């Protein structure tokens, strides 16, 4: 008791002096976290993820006394902007954001500008279960090394979903997609870049067109970008007039496509979540005739992470939440198609028999592919590809009325 009191006193003194919690001393982290409020900034556009975040918050509240407030963002970059504004104003501690759901270009920008706290992720207790060898994306975020500055919590892989009632045989390659779109104009679209899913569609198309996919792992500046992307632009020149609304308007986000499909406006859509279609069917958002498929030759996969800003107010609480997200229990729940349908970042072989049973018990949804059917994930290209392609698309297609 006395020891705990002394530790607690020391900790409160330490945190008053602005010392950062050390995840290697996990008991101290738990001690400090208790009673903290973690403002988790996460995209709020999906009902399923919002429900999952609320569940995770309830759990860490009950177990560790950490309160979680979900700050629903319409764009993750809002959170990046917030941290930047705080740095501008010299607010180097007590910042408004404790944890951000992040990856790709947002992570690269924060890392480059020194806006992140850490390293901490690889010292979390549950890190030992993470499938570092089998899922390289968990330590290499769009090829940028995470260096322990962010902790993975979900795997995503590109899939397409389609309504079998209107489209019995979906096109399984980009040339086939183009041919089908020509024959059925106006029945396909993708979220408008800078939405990440729209840019992902283009990177996916690019994968099928480059001779040496390894080129995409290098920064776009280091290779002949124009030559590599030329076939992509030719492909889009032909595809765009055959898109929904002749490519003169686009859905602004991925989930918006669900409504378009339910309304019968499109027959085929791209998603970064293999279980999204099943979850939407369960919520009356899609008809139960919708199914999922992947392209021949594989599709791009990546990991979602959580990161702590350098000036976060509740760093210990944020770590406790991040660690809980890595727990087999939370991972199994996230993989449940009736909840989220996100892939796990864990290596099932490292789990105890009891924990593995949680995953084995999951029923894949009616429209969800099994891991075998999903096939291997292609690695994300370097973030510079995303930035360049996004900018070029906007110049070529995004501003031409």
């Amino acid at each position, binding site marked *: 008791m006395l020891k705990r009191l002394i530790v607690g006193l020391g900790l409160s003194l330490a945190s008053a002096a602005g010392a950062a919690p050390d995840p290697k001393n996990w008991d101290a982290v738990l001690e400090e976290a208790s009673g903290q409020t973690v403002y988790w*900034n996460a995209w*709020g*556009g999906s*009902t399923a993820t919002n429900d999952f975040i609320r569940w995770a918050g309830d759990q860490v509240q009950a177990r560790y006394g950490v309160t979680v*407030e979900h*700050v*629903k*963002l*319409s764009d*993750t*970059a*809002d*959170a*990046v*902007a*917030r941290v*930047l*504004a705080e*740095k*501008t*104003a*010299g*607010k180097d501690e007590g910042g*408004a954001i404790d944890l951000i759901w992040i990856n790709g*270009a*947002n992570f*690269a*920008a924060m890392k480059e500008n020194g806006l992140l706290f850490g390293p901490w992720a690889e010292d979390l207790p549950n890190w030992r279960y993470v499938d570092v060898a089998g899922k390289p994306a968990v330590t290499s975020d769009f090829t940028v090394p995470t260096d322990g500055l962010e902790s993975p919590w979900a795997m995503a892989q590109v899939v397409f979903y389609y309504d079998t009632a*209107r489209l019995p045989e979906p096109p399984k390659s980009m040339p086939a997609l183009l041919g089908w779109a020509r024959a059925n*104009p*106006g029945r396909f679209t993708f979220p*408008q870049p*800078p939405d990440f899913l729209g840019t992902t569609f283009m990177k996916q198309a690019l994968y099928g067109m480059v001779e040496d996919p390894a080129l995409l792992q290098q920064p776009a500046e280091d290779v002949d970008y124009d030559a590599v992307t030329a076939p992509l632009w030719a492909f889009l020149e032909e595809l765009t007039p055959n898109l929904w*609304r*002749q*490519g*003169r*308007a*686009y*859905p*602004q*986000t991925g*989930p*918006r496509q*669900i*409504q*378009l499909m*339910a*309304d*019968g*406006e499109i027959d085929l859509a791209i998603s970064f979540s293999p279980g999204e279609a099943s979850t939407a069917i369960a919520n*009356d*958002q899609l*008809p139960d005739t919708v199914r999922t498929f992947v392209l021949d030759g594989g599709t791009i996969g990546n990991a979602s992470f959580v990161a702590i800003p350098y000036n976060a107010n509740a760093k210990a609480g944020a770590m406790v939440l991040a660690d809980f997200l890595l727990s087999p229990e939370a991972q199994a729940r996230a993989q449940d198609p009736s909840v989220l349908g996100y892939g796990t970042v864990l290596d099932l072989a490292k789990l105890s028999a009891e924990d593995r049973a949680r995953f084995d018990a999951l029923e894949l949804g009616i429209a969800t592919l099994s891991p075998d059917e999903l096939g291997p994930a292609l690695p994300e290209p370097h973030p510079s590809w995303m*930035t360049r392609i996004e900018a070029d698309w*906007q*110049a070529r*297609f995004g*501003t031409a*009325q």
Partner: protein
Amino acid sequence: MRLRYAPALTLALMLGPVLAGLAGTLLPAIGLFPALGGTAPGLAPLKALLGWPGLGPAVSLSLGTGLAATALSLVLTALIVGSWHGTRAFRWLEAALSPLLSVPHAAAAFGIAFLIAPSGWISRALSPWATGWTRPPDLLIVQDPWGLAMTLGLVTKELPFLLLMTLAALPQAQPRRSLTVAQALGYGRLTGWLKVVLPRIYAQIRLPVYAVLAYSMSVVDVALILGPNTPPPLAVQVMRWMTDPDLAQRFTAAAGATLQLALVAGALGLWRLGEGAAARLGRAWVAQGCRRHADGLGRRAALVLGALSAGAVLAGLAGLALWSVAGFWSFPDALPDTLTLRPWLRHGPELLEPALDTLLIAGAATALALALTLACLQAEQRFGLTPGARSLWLLYLPLLVPQIAFLPGLQTLALMAGADMGRGAVILGHLVFVLPYVFLSLGDPFRSWDRRQATIAAALGAGPARIFWTLRLPMLLAPVLTAAAVGFAVSVGQYLPTLLIGAGRVQTLTTEAVALASGGDRRLIGLYAIAQTAVVVLGFALAIAAPRLVWANRRGMRAG
């Protein structure tokens, strides 16, 4: 009692944030932003802005939709009031349009989007029996490149505003006598009104018209829902740059925001020139002496268009309400397969917390605005200050400067001042927008209160404070509550100030609704739109009901 300083304090609270925010925007626009390495002024941000290929169309869209929405709203307002004022049809239209003022812009835009889309309610009602469509046609109706859907969406919201502003201005123009004379000389009702009453009314509603123009040109939430996006109007693009992961785009955003400010200033100047031209043409038209110009047609058109405008918003809201209880609902079914309370049971409890925060923030901002306004008006009267035309302009300044041009700068400022970024800062941020509306709706009733009653009270020995608290304020209960309801509605509708000043930590029904909108789940959007509208309508209902209850036995006090 430091009543004398009330006007200065009010101005400082209202204009200080605007001016400071503008400085925070202009500096990065010329390259000054130390945290991002911008330490020397330069033209790079401007060059980046000019290098954006969509700039021309985006600027035209901003100008085109803004000018068109303002002109349409103004013409329609004039036609409706001129044709029907004083008739039963007018009271009916007024009753249908006034509540629409309280519907948040985003909610109205969602409703209209669902109404007019190719897979929307109108198309569903007519398919397949009339149209033959079993799947929605691939037509670009919502988000059309011309911004027509967006313009119409704006008109449905700006029409009620201008209509109420016109009605407020009418008594001073004394239309009855002029109209009687005009009609005795053989002028048709509408032609007569346009020739003799409108010129006097316009002088009084000029500033509200300018506010509509500035707002329509730089609106973000309506443009996101109904506006085009290849490219979007300038204000939306500025938002995109501001939220770009590449932090260097903040400079471009600042340059864009500065351009938006210049565009609004330019459009206001253009409108002012147009006023002069219209006045010259109008004088020639009046002098020409023609008694009737298709009066009957104009009157019918005014009624139909007014009813359409009100009907679009109301039907849109009804559609959203239906979505919030819909099971699976596919095209071309006019109604959902099943009705279910599941969305409400599942998400209803989540509404509670943002709803409470919404009430708290709107209540506090409105109370502050009311106190400051009353103090200003009382000071004006006590010390014989005469509000000139310039003070009215100052009052309108926060409504004329585009939000996108000064809020980002204000955010940085709030941080530097060490504000706790909580509800307090948001309340002060809302105050900037609530104050002008409260002042505008309370100013005239307060000033037109019959001062002879104060003289009698003073003769009976009451001091100024007692006269104010026991005589003037109770007698002005109805207009004070109406002003409060207007201020409340303005606060509830604020999106950008809540998001930027509140650091995303302060969540109101509006910020939640717009965040959810990005997911496109119509059930959830419907749920939040209904909750958002209900809060505001409740405020107005209270403002109307309270005087009737308090003054149940004082008939003359109820009208206000």
